């Protein structure tokens, strides 16, 4: 059982890191600012969720897990607000996105 838990959290941590690196590569690779926000969103949502989730599995039902859950909650509430504020500020500054058509 403990081994299963270890394997599961290992997989989650690895998955989180993979998503994080993917998002970062996207942030470097995507052509304009607005598309980069989407790539950064990957690192803030599922990547952070998997990493913190993997840690939660290791901590079990303790105060530590509760704190990790708080971190995740704050992250998931604040990161969209930050992305939205970023996109909005960019738009208001007259920095228009490059669209495909």
């Amino acid at each position, binding site marked *: 059982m403990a081994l299963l838990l270890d394997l599961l959290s290992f997989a989650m941590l690895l998955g989180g890191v993979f998503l994080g690196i993917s998002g970062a590569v996207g942030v470097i690779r995507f052509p304009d600012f607005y598309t980069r926000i989407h790539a950064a969103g990957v690192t803030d949502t599922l990547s952070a969720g998997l990493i913190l989730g993997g840690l939660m599995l290791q901590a079990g039902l*303790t105060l530590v897990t509760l704190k990790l859950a708080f971190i995740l909650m704050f992250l998931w509430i604040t990161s969209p607000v930050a992305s939205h504020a970023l996109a909005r500020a960019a738009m208001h500054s007259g920095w228009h996105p490059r669209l495909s058509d």
Partner: protein
Amino acid sequence: MRWRGRPCIPAGIRACPIRSAVIDQVIDVLLLILLVITAIAVVRIKSLFAVVMLFGIYSLITAGIFVVLDAVDVAFTEAAVGAGITTVLMLTTLARTGHKQAPARHSPALPLTVVIITGAVLFWGTQDMPRFADPGAPIHLHVADRYIEAGPEEVGVPNMVTAVLASYRGFDTLGEVAVVFTAGVGVLALLGVRRRRKGDGDG
């Protein structure tokens, strides 16, 4: 390694855990490399706005290094002051001045020499310092032991840094607070509080 059912140990009075020194060093070195790269970029980039942003990153990485060095309270302050307040203050300054660095009027040779010599002297000076985390170092043989052993009972605050700052060195801290307060009042008097502008309140 398992935390299940383990109580939260208050900061400062736990025994140092056994840890893998290699991994610690790898993380340390990686953070320091990031720090050096950021510093070089700060020097090279001419746009002051970008420099302020990079300074924010610099502070965050520094805070990470402090965490790795076990100086959690310092890391905390670095993140709040360095990445938070300083960024806002510098941006407020930029709003009143310009965004571009003025071109250098003199050759960088002399300052560079001075910096290199100072750095070399400092580096040479570290040879006399005790080894990192050496329990026999003078600083650990003075009053630190007493603070660590008697602090929790005498002051009743679990965080040792707080105990030292607010109790053992209370007058010291009071003096510092007075200095910071005077400085703040002085700055306000210099700038003048004409209209209520948002940027002023942010700091």
